[in-house]
């Protein structure tokens, strides 16, 4: 277990939501105080030096997003926490919100201060209703201590936070769908231009970040960017919250240093794969990401090493499959998920997810034809190339990667 780190998760299990003083005693809100003292540019400079990337999945460099949000000339803008954690196998945001709610609030206040927003929103997935109630409690307590409200800590910066619940759709994790949902519309993505950074919530510039991103910013401001960066291994900077699950002895949420290998995560942190084998493949980053076969388990867990091989850190989920799992069965579950979660707006995703699932189910039953497999690729091409949003564009990724790494096994299921 010594491979894990405790920086972003340093306060886990050390206080409960009613104990805001304990959070402060532990060092909480010192990041906010530092930010208020040093100014917005210092915050952006810190996250740039820490090389912090967005934790929602796209891994966009944070300082760029924060800088452009800060530079928007509009007087009214918003900062938003995307806590619609819907990626299968991902549950680290739940822990972050449940076990350290004030850190998220602190990160969000820093974001508001840095970008010039006066209001922040936390969009919490419907299934996390207990967390929403807890967040409301935390917001009220933070307000009573003047970490929220007017003239925060004697400065002329005022900020308020509201928690908001969705109605339960995976696609609402997509920024435009999330905002549509907050507007009371059906949770379907809209056309990208204008981007939410220009026109988002209530048609105002809106900066959306993942829960973990805000936690990282709070930690970076609290301990300094060097302290954060030094946590990584072999020259890689920082840590990542991962959700480890599947065929693994010790599933759970862990904070790991960037640079650790997949093998170390599975064996030393996760305790192995239940059947004593090394494991057959993992899916890292979520249902929309590639499968990583056991032959690549020596890959270091970093954005760059993964990207080079076509893998993803994504949301930080790692689903482990051992030797007992048939690849086609796994794909059936993945494609079934996308069929269920497609919003139905654009043709390739709405129809394509269904047809892919049908063909993969035929593969599971050993009755798919060569033509069907070819059709699978045609549909996948169209989905990736022409879907409206990221859901459809990435839904075929796992299937295509499986064909790349486990073609022989899959083709055994094709009728001759």
């Amino acid at each position: 277990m010594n491979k894990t780190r405790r920086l972003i998760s340093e306060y886990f299990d050390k206080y409960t939501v009613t104990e805001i003083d304990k959070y402060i005693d532990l060092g909480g809100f010192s990041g906010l105080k530092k930010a208020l003292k040093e100014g917005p540019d210092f915050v952006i400079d810190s996250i740039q030096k820490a090389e912090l990337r967005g934790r929602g999945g796209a891994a966009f460099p944070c300082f760029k997003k924060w800088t452009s949000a800060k530079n928007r000339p509009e007087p009214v803008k918003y900062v938003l926490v995307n806590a619609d954690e819907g990626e299968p196998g991902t549950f680290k945001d739940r822990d972050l919100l449940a076990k350290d709610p004030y850190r998220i609030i602190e990160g969000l206040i820093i974001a508001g201060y840095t970008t010039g927003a006066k209001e922040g929103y936390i969009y919490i997935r419907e299934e996390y209703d207990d967390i929403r109630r807890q967040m409301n409690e935390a917001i009220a307590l933070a307000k009573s201590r003047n970490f929220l409200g007017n003239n925060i800590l004697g400065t002329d910066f005022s900020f308020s936070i509201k928690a908001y619940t969705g109605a339960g759709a995976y696609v609402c994790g997509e920024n435009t769908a999330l905002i549509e949902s907050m507007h009371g519309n059906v949770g379907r993505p809209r056309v990208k231009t204008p981007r939410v950074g220009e026109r988002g919530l209530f048609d105002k510039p809106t900066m959306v970040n993942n829960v973990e991103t805000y936690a990282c910013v709070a930690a970076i401001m609290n301990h300094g960017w060097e302290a954060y960066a030094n946590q990584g291994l072999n020259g890689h900077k920082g840590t990542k919250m991962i959700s480890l699950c599947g065929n693994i002895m010790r599933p759970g949420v862990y904070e790991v240093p960037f640079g650790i290998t997949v093998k170390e995560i599975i064996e030393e942190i996760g305790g192995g794969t239940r059947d004593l084998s090394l494991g057959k493949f993992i899916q890292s980053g979520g249902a929309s990401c590639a499968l990583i076969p056991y032959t690549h388990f020596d890959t270091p867990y970093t954005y760059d090493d993964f990207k080079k091989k076509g893998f993803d850190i994504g949301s930080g989920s790692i689903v482990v499959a051992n030797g007992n799992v048939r690849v086609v069965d796994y794909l059936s579950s993945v494609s079934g998920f996308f069929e269920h979660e497609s919003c139905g707006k654009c043709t390739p995703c709405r129809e394509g997810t269904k047809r892919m699932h049908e063909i993969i189910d035929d593969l599971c039953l050993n009755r798919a034809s060569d033509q069907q497999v070819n059709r699978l690729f045609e549909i996948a091409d169209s989905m990736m190339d022409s879907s409206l949003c990221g859901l459809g564009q990435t839904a075929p990724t796992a299937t295509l990667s499986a064909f790349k790494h486990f073609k022989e096994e899959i083709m055994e299921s094709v009728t001759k």
Partner: protein
Amino acid sequence: MVKLTINNTPVEVPKSYSVLEACREAGFDVPTLCFMKEINEVGACRVCLVEIEGEKRLEASCVTPVKDGMVVKTNTKRVRDRVRTNVELLLENHNRECTTCPRSRNCELLNLAETLGIEELQFQGAKRERYYDDFSHSIVRDSSKCILCGKCVSTCKKVQGIGILGFQNRGYNSNVGPAFQAKMSDTDCVFCGQCVNVCPVGALTEKQDMHRVWDAIEDPEKYVVVQTAPAVRAALGEEFGNEIGTRTTGKMAAALRRLGFNNVFDTNFAADLTIMEEGHELLHRIQNNGVLPMITSCSPGWIRYCEFNHHDFLPNLSSCKSPHQMFGALVKTYYADKIKVDPKKMFVVSVMPCISKKTEAARPEMEQEHLRDVDAVITTRELAKMIKQAGINFNHLPDESFDKIMGEYTGAGVIFGATGGVMEAAIRTVADVLTGEDLETIEYHAVRGTDDIKEATIHVAGLDINVAVVHGTKPAGQLLELVRKGEKNYHFIEVMGCPGGCVNGGGQPQVPQKIRDTVDLKVERAKALYEEDQLMTLRKSHKNEEVKKLYDEFLGKPNSHKAHHLLHTHYTKRFK
């Protein structure tokens, strides 16, 4: 201006253009299914795909703004393959009973499939659950043909301001319909049929009544009388390959006669009659401190909208029945008596540019002596079908006129079909009545055109009459709100339920979106009506000799007791 390259052709277009508009201007046709300018710019169907240099994925050209230096390709293998796959995916989940579909002749999906050369679908997976609703008198909804483009949803909400239709469920199970799959007839749908007009496929169609008309014509016991609304003549020709805006009054009358109707009449006659009744009602209200503003009642879609949404304005509605209902009532009394036919054997058919008229004709109050005013309503589209079924070569027909004694009409009756027409016709008569003269001013251009709300003040005989004209239920609702707040004061308001008035009604020929994007149907079809008005020697309703005779011999005078009994009606508060 922005410079870009499309298929190696340099193009210069305004900055506000989408890539789609730029492509079309450069002479490259990009197919679309869901796009409607400003109304449904959602990028959902993914068939207007183009390749843009530097972009990782293909882009939907309809929602991609042009940029300086952009290099666009519309016809690469990649584009063709993806469009083809997407259309195949639509077809796999489509109820492909094209041979028996009412839209197969001008189905946009079928046309696209044909253009792309999709001759075979290799796989047939599951199909989504089907919802079929033919319970209303006006609209049939068949979700098995829906391609979820959302044009009807946007039109209902954004154009008409009603919002009956919406997306339900998710992903593959998505469907478009009223909330909780309610029947259209159980909603506050006004049956304007604007959704039917924009549907690219056969998912929304009118409820057909042709067969009942054929049966009646065939029945030797029945005396079948047909009347045609003014707007029909301005669009019927389109169904026979004529240009939009071609006027086919004479050929239409000839065709109807050849279909076997015993009498071919014109609703314009009743339009003139409406002006007499409504005009005098207005004068009566103005002179006796009646409820003002008075609002027209010709459009059944508008009436239904008011009954559902604006209960406080029901007393403002003119009590006149709509012209074709008046006409039906008179055929079965005045005319039946003239020709000595038992009214019970009479069957009145209305050819209307409207599908809401079907629901209107079925309203319980639209009858007298237990005889329905109108027995069947068919649309312009259905009439065209009947003409084709009868094998009549429409374009070679001679021009004929309508039958006596309810076939005469004035120019005022003709322009009823365009927004502002009823108002203009009313002013022509009211001005003459008030001054007691035959005024030379006939055309009132202030109330013409397609602006949402048109206003005018008519100075006549020492009176200032403030009028307003509005078309489409959404602007109508907005105008009523202004009146309610006291910000606007009118004596008379003309409201038509459809944008542009009847010429753009839900029963008019369906025009592919590609043409709708460039031609303003409302304007072109209205032109045909104003042309006919100009050609008429009689252009004021009160000059109609047959109408005069009707009053002399039968009704007495406008708003007489008998007129009230036959030609006027009442309204009902309806709740959503």
